């Protein structure tokens, strides 16, 4: 598409009629004016000076131009920002929200809008965390199962827990599952990782118990393996088993380890390692 001939004009923010402030987290450079289309500010919401584009926003070409301007202003937006944008643009008939969503890999459908509504009802601090860490729609899907409940204590805990993105996503789902089962502890005093471990233990009680039992039993084997060999019980998805680590200080150590392997094999077969 040929870049349109735009005749933007610098104007005062006070002359703009409204703004599409969807709370993007990216910082707008202080030295640049904000950007508006037809007097609606779409970027640089804090700026006094605005570069206003005059476009025929009711035409297909005009909407395409709005889309291109918007995409150039916001090369990256997270799912949470898209949800906010969709809500902010609800009253702007000419804003090409469906096209912008598609270019960000989302579809404007009930699946998106119902989750967006649910997300936007949550505390701002949690919303900002999700945007900052780049949570996706699927990560937030558990919220829809408890739409009528006050999640503030839980979401505040996640927000303040210093968890990584994947840990936070796991914590939300585990905690919502437990909340629905009536098993989410009311007292939350542990730090992030310890809390996540507790959530896992409560949500997966049978597997956790079996894995912990195996780990205890496997520790006994450590006495019969060479000191530079470490063994531990690990879970990899639907399978759990022994991880054996060998430490080699010199190439010859591998030979020594290989000679010790039959002893380990024998200890495993005679030892406490048994099926769940």
């Amino acid at each position, binding site marked *: 598409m040929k870049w349109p001939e735009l005749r933007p004009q610098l104007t005062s923010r006070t002359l703009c009629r409204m703004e599409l402030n969807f709370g993007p987290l990216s910082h707008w450079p202080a030295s640049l004016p904000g950007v508006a289309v037809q007097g609606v500010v779409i970027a640089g919401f804090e700026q006094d000076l605005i570069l206003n584009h005059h476009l025929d926003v009711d035409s297909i070409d005009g909407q395409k131009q709005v889309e291109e301007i918007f995409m150039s202003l916001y090369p990256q937006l997270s799912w949470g920002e898209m949800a906010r944008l969709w809500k902010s643009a609800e009253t702007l008939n000419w804003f090409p929200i469906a096209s912008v969503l598609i270019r960000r890999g989302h*579809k*404007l*459908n*009930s*699946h*998106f809008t*119902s989750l967006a509504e649910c997300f936007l009802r949550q505390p701002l601090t949690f919303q900002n965390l999700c945007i900052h860490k780049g949570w996706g729609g*699927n990560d937030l*899907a*558990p919220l*829809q*199962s408890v739409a009528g409940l006050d999640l503030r204590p839980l979401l505040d805990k996640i927000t303040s827990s210093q968890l990584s993105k994947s840990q936070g996503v796991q914590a939300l789902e585990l905690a*919502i*599952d437990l909340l*629905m*089962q*009536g098993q989410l502890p009311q007292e939350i005093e542990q730090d992030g990782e310890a809390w996540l471990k507790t959530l896992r233990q409560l*949500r*997966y*009680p*049978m*597997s956790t118990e*079996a894995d912990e039992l195996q780990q205890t039993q496997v520790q006994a084997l450590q006495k019969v393996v060479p000191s530079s060999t470490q063994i531990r019980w690990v*879970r990899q*998805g*639907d*399978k*759990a088993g022994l991880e054996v680590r060998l430490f080699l200080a010199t190439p010859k150590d591998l030979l020594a380890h290989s000679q010790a392997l039959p002893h380990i094999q024998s200890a495993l077969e005679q030892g406490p390692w048994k*099926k*769940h």
Partner: protein
Amino acid sequence: MEKTLTTKFEHLTHFERIFINEESWDTPVADRFRRHNPAAEVIRLPAGQSQAVTTDLGPLTAEQFARSKRWVHLKAFPGSFFKRCPGFSQKKALTCCNYHVLNLGQQCNFNCSYCYLQSYLNAPTMMVYTNLDDALNELQEMARLHSQSPFRIGTGEVIDSLSLDPTTLFSRELIQFFRQLPNWTLEMKTKSALVDQFLDCEHAGNVLISWSVNTQEIIAREEHGTASQLERLAAAEKCAQRGFQIGFHIDPLIWHPNWEQGYADLVAAITSRFTPDQVGVLSVGTLRFQPEQRHMMRERFGATSHVVRAEMFSSESGKMRYDQNLRQTMYRHVRECFQKHSRDWQILMCMETPETWISQYGEQPVRIDGLRDQFKALPPTPSKLRNRQPTL
């Protein structure tokens, strides 16, 4: 016959709306849908309209999915009815049993918490295809090439084979068609007890009526709207008495308190009514689903569901499954329950990994007497059938 059935199945007033395409309006199937659902709103659509209502692109919300079970769309299907079971496409991770499917509609009027259709369908209505003749022509084309190969063809992949059969009466025409193909097997799989509509049909001994069965606790809690365990087994007895092969799929095995006793009782209920030679197929499979499906299940069924509460992990095939050791324990338990009764019971494991087969049987199924034939490679589907795409 039809008059008797109409009276008998008057209770099947399930649908709120029936959408009927112009090309299907005057078909006997459409006529019966209107008569069997007198309270439903009936809407006539232009010929060829692929979807009854305009919907968003992409996955359905929980609410839209639930509604799609109450709206049915009758139309002619323009694509290929006949295809391989989805297990074939995961052959690297799973052991495939060469099953083929004939899809005469999609979506199900039952409501099982674990149903994989929740992560598979994005149409706003249930669909029933009224052009059964085209499906039979397609089978005829396949039969011209491979009538001697032991194809097993099921109609219950994306729709229950019999839950609407008193209205569609597809079973009667299919049974008639399969009389000319004694080497092929037709399998109609259901969670209903609706068999009376075809019991009088003459058949060639190659029609298998099978039931997905479970403990009564699981049926009551997870398989909403379906027949009870006793009703299903009673229907199976009727079919066996009429010389139909019968089959049972104890699938999915679902962990729940007292599961061992529940499945032992189920096995006892089967073995007390049937002998191994009466049961053409006996399969077991443990709970499994696509990861994204858990959100819809949680939203639709809540924490009282044993499926929603299950301890599931990512598996190599990408699906969520129980811990491998628990799966093996469950398989072993069911197998031992059957074998306590008779060593002649042969159990298939559905969509399982080679490791699990080896752990249970010591061998892959192609090496096991009694199962070998089902797992042998079959001729491919002709490309002109395989490549025919629906114009949805």
